[in-house]
């Protein structure tokens, strides 16, 4: 029998965390430092030892079982149990009717969730699921998480307390987050695709365009927002129409423009790379058959370049979902609003209320676009 190395590492991390770090933290209110509590302190003895027993079983499977399906099931069972244990701790520690105390997942809880998550990801990867199965798994996972949240399973945990306070704003900021990220992507596609095609046709343009876009990419986001403030403010002042459309020095306009500029490089570079991947012989044959240049572009070159272009779209979407967060600093809105409010109030739970959905969004976008790119790649090169 061989010891699984990843399993050994994750088991060591989980065991160490469980033994030395708090499972949950009890805070009398949202900003005071909390009291650490271990699993046995917060759950009835049978439940706590049940958890330990299950985690021990998961650890043994992670160490010694090679079958990816068994490992996946064990890891997912671990995730569910650890999540439910925190929820149960929240229910047990919250005095009835009290809306001030905060029960936050502790360091051990996070380490366990990350370890089990890595174990599940590793097992899923070993099974090499096809694109359809990957999307299905994502949908099922999100549905389960949503059902648990809607059912109120985690309502006594600190993050959900923050959600309860901010529920009305949350939906609005989440929608804004998606529309800022998606809108800047759409604009980048509208400009980047034609620009990429042009760069492919005119090699001399390629160097200049990619050079400029590379330089833009190196400007820090905050600096770019700052750089854009003055021209956009001037634009709004000079053109009443621009102001009427909501273009101002701060707010969504500089955020979208900055994200658009960052998005151009991956779109243009991948369009060029995708078109270059199309064999010269194929294009020549297409012309030789009597296709017009437009027919060659839409019927041959773009379909063959599509998987590479979609990889660029994936990079942009994931990057934008992350960077929209910073837009909250200049009044752009989005889930970053909670992150920066939380930082301002030293309320880590509020930071997490913004950060966790952002991570989930980015992860979902990556899974969906990876699957799409794989489906579109009919012709392995």
């Amino acid at each position: 029998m061989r010891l699984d190395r990843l399993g050994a590492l994750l088991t060591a991390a989980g065991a160490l965390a469980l033994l030395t770090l708090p499972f949950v933290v009890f805070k009398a209110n949202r900003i005071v430092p909390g009291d650490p509590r271990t699993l046995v302190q917060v759950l009835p003895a049978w439940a706590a030892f049940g958890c330990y027993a299950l985690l021990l079983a998961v650890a043994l499977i992670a160490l010694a079982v090679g079958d990816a399906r068994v490992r996946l099931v064990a890891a997912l069972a671990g995730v569910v149990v650890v999540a439910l244990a925190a929820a149960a701790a929240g229910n047990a520690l919250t005095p009835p009717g009290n809306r001030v105390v905060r029960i936050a997942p502790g360091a051990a809880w996070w380490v366990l969730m990350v370890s089990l998550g890595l174990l599940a990801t590793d097992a899923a990867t070993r099974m090499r699921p096809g694109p359809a199965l990957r999307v299905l798994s994502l949908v099922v996972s999100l549905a389960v998480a949503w059902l648990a949240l809607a059912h109120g399973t985690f309502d006594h945990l600190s993050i959900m307390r923050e959600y309860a306070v901010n529920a009305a704003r949350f939906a609005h900021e989440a929608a804004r987050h998606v529309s800022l990220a998606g809108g800047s992507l759409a604009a980048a596609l509208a400009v980047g695709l034609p620009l990429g095609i042009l760069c492919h046709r005119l090699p001399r343009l390629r160097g200049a365009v990619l050079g400029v876009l590379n330089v833009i990419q190196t400007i820090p986001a905050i600096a770019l927002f700052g750089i854009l403030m003055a021209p956009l403010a001037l634009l709004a002042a000079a053109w009443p129409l621009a102001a009427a459309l909501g273009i101002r020095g701060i707010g969504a306009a500089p955020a979208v423009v900055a994200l658009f500029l960052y998005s151009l490089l991956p779109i243009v570079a991948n369009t060029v790379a995708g078109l270059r991947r199309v064999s010269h012989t194929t294009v020549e044959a297409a012309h030789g058959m009597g296709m017009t240049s437009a027919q060659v572009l839409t019927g041959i070159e773009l379909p063959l370049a599509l998987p590479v272009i979609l990889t660029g779209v994936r990079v942009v979407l994931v990057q934008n979902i992350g960077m929209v967060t910073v837009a909250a600093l200049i009044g752009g809105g989005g889930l970053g609003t909670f992150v920066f409010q939380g930082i301002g109030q030293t309320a880590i739970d509020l930071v997490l209320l913004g950060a966790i959905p952002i991570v989930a969004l980015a992860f979902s976008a990556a899974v969906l676009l990876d699957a799409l790119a794989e489906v579109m790649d009919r012709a392995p090169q």
Partner: protein
Amino acid sequence: MITIENLTKRYGATAVVDGVSMEIAGNSLTVIVGTSGSGKSTLLRMVNRLVEPSSGRVLIDGHDTRDEPAHLLRRRIGYAIQGHGLFPHRTVAENIATVPRLLGWDAGRIRARVEELLRAFQLDPAVYAGQLPHQLSGGQQQRVGVARALAVEPALLLMDEPFGALDPIIRAKAQEDLLEVRRRFGTTIVLVTHDMDEAFRLGDRVAVMSEGRVLQYDRPAVLLTRPADPFVSRMTGIAGRALRLLTLISAGEAAIPGAGDGPEVVASATLHDVLSELVWRGVDSVRVVDADGTPRGRLTVAAILARGRP
């Protein structure tokens, strides 16, 4: 019939094709042969205007090729290239249907034509129509490439090193298939190659190109017996020229009257093959018969050797 008049292509100061004039007869198989950089591919591509000439013109059946838009001209001319150029994201059937679709044929007619062509190239439609090019062998890909070029039965087929990527055995098969296509459809074929053996095997007439010029354009036998230029001699090979000449003559053509004795050879065999058979068997005469066994006369070593001289 194709008439090429004083055709020139210049890139900057260098003329890649330099004042070429030639006439290509209908239903003929013309091979343009030359070293790389001789301008042979450029000359071919000026016929379907993938390359626009700097000066000169091309007439097909008396009509200047510049009288219609290039893409419409190309739909009437078959085009097959080295490495087949199949569209990797389209199935075999979709690839073959390319030009019929461009011409707006209805779906039923396209399907019928695709199946007919696949069968003509020994590819079972039920198996291959739905496959993607990368699922086929090299020889199958090449056949689909030629089938695609013939989809609308063009009167003219241009081929640019069509067999260059094939191994010798599949290549010989592909060459036979091409001769069969020509018999069957009566297509005028212009083929570019750097391989002199291929040129001699396939061509009714062979044009030898060097540095953008056609040095000689004639029947293969004339290239051997009366080379117009030392370069032509070098291309055709001085050492093997007598044997090469024998490959151009069939046993039926060279047979001398009389019953004769010795083993039978078919009239379609080349004198080169017959001589090889004589040497191998250690005899000095053979009987020539038709495919159905009818006697056509006899051949002797002396009679064969006499044909290997200019």
